[in-house]
């Protein structure tokens, strides 16, 4: 179990470190919202999911995308604005999607995908599919009205969805306590009627164990309806961009210290036998260098692409064949 977790963690961390390294070269054509320091949440929560399960994310979705098995070359090529990107250079870094991996997309407007995930879960339930939907969002998103509205509907219809609040304590530079009268997101979930669990310390093993239990009970039908996790974590880098932001003075390096010491990548690394670790690491490094090369060598989209994809052609076979 440690090995796959470590592979996910290491892969996310290294991909983002590479992105941070390349960023200043102006080769990346997108803003980047790094999740360095927060990888454990996505890694733990997505591990028990199957490929056909669905996740919805945010502009800070590199971790979610990769943890769910999203295609790396497509992700990097997208950041380079290339035609081979996961949205062919149309969406950029804030709208990563990989349908084959069950990554249903991400939004740059905070909170929007929470409702979209609930709608997807409604379809799953209506069609009696065994898919599980997972919605990732931040602490700030819980302040948007759509959060309360979405939770209420998910409970009302007992939908197979797990809400995961990645609480890194900040919305850009503003601490949760400056934004929330009662800074207790689980309390709001419970008031909506959800079972809610707070995981305080970014502990990947606890998160993994709790996620596994919840997902299993949903699969086995011993639980029906939504569940809620609030996972406290910490963003090491600035809100957007490759650097740090401690110099801005809104938070201190001291505050960050315990989180950095508790780095889950290091922790899980220590639990993996050296040989296996080496193997994982060199495989990941190779994959990353390949993906970067792919992105750099890919062409930009042709300008004719500007006008495509606004609309799909009227009525698909899919819709018609259902007739009679």
């Amino acid at each position, binding site marked *: 179990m440690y090995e796959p977790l470590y592979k996910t963690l290491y892969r996310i961390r290294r991909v983002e470190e590479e992105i941070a390294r390349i960023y200043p070269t102006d080769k990346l054509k997108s803003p980047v919202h790094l999740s360095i320091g927060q990888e454990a949440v996505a890694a733990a929560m997505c591990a028990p999911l199957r490929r056909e399960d669905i996740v*919805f994310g945010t502009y800070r979705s590199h971790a979610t995308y990769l943890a769910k098995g999203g295609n790396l070359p497509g992700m990097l090529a997208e950041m380079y604005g290339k035609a081979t*990107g*996961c*949205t*062919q*250079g*149309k*969406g950029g870094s804030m*709208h990563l*999607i990989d*349908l084959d991996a069950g990554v*249903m*997309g991400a*939004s740059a*407007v905070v909170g*929007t995908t*929470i*409702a*979209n*995930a*609930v*709608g*997807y*879960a*409604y*379809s*799953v*339930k*209506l069609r009696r599919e065994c898919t599980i939907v997972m919605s990732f969002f931040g602490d700030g998103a819980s302040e948007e*009205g*759509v959060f309360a*509205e*979405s939770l*209420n*509907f998910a409970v*009302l219809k007992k939908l197979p969805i797990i809400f995961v609040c990645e609480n890194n304590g900040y919305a850009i530079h503003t601490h949760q306590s400056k934004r929330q009268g009662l800074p207790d997101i689980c309390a709001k979930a419970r008031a909506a009627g959800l079972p809610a669990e707070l995981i305080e310390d970014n502990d990947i093993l606890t998160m993994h164990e709790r996620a596994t239990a919840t997902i299993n009970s949903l699969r086995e039908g011993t639980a029906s309806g939504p569940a809620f996790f609030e996972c406290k974590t910490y963003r090491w880098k600035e809100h957007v961009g490759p650097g740090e932001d401690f110099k801005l003075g809104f938070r201190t390096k001291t505050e960050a210290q315990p989180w950095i010491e508790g780095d889950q990548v290091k922790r899980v690394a220590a639990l993996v036998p050296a040989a296996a670790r080496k193997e994982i690491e060199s495989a990941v490094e190779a994959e990353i260098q390949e993906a970067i090369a792919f992105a750099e060598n890919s062409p930009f989209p042709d300008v004719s692409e500007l006008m*495509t*994809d*606004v*609309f*799909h*052609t*009227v*009525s*698909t076979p*899919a*819709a*018609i064949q*259902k*007739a*009679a």
Partner: protein
Amino acid sequence: METTLCIDQYTSNKSCSIGAAVSSAKPERTLSYVDAVREATDQEMDRDSSVILFGLDVDDPKAIQGTTRGLVEKYGSERVFGTPLSEDAMTGVAIGAALAGLRPIHVHIRMDFLMLSMNQLVNVAAKSSYMYGGKVKVPLVVRSMIGKSWGQGAQHSQGLYSFFMHVPGIKVVAPSNPYDAKGCLIAAIRDDNPVMYVEHRILHFQKGPCPEKLYTVNPGKARITSPGEDVTLVGISYMQLECLRAQKYLEDVGISAEVIDPIWLAPLDVDTIAESVRKTGRLVVVDNGWTSCGASAEIVAQVTERLQGVRDIRVQRLGFAPVTCPTSPPLEAEFYPDSRRIAQACNDLVHGKPQNWHPAERPELKDL
């Protein structure tokens, strides 16, 4: 049941009346707008199990003016359901369900309430196909109703469809009769893109020919509802009715108006309108909303662009008065264009200067 897809037979033949068009299809059947909407929904839900219907009060005793009557009984409360008062999230839910392959119809009893759904509609529904490089589609229909009179007032009377004409990625349709109500709704449900389907509560009570079979009135085709020579009169949504009445008034002064119903506002059939104006040299657009940055502004601008250097034309826009909708009857009457004032405007335009003609009301036109 009859499931052959049949395309509106006479948007091609633009100058024939709906009656004529349908009479080809065996004994002509008359239906109310409400029943046409209901039947289209019923037939599509029956045909395609991915179609679902929801929105505040769709399953309540009033059944959205009757447009959803009986559907929860027939298709069950999983495919037909009322919702909490949560327009923002429920719009997001509709989009998510569409992403998963369902074809949701989301109903709003007032178009005014769509202002709570703008973020999901403008930032997500309209953009998903494009920003995901065509990887996903959002086959969503949003039905909303425009209110009028009886003290509806400021927040229950707006026709805000121009917002959706502004944003790429959304289609907009505003059928004005039962035939189009059914054909456009079927087309909207089968469309793989978000479609704003705009109804007007006064139109709900209109009766008209409407075939029982399934047929579509497809995006991007306007209809000449009454051919003429002297002035082109474009009437949107409910104003189509007032324009048809105005056309009758104009006959009294020997003016022949060509009345056009754009039906679909996005994509907009400028060809048909411009072709008509090229003939008449005069364009009056009557909208069921404000004129500033409205549908009438777009139609006037496009026709002007098309015909510049081709023919010198005269244009005029009529719409809501540039104020909030009042409730007091005398003020409300003044707020809306009506057939007689439309006729006057056309008459003045044709004569090139204000005439002193104020047609007396012809009550028989009420049943038009």
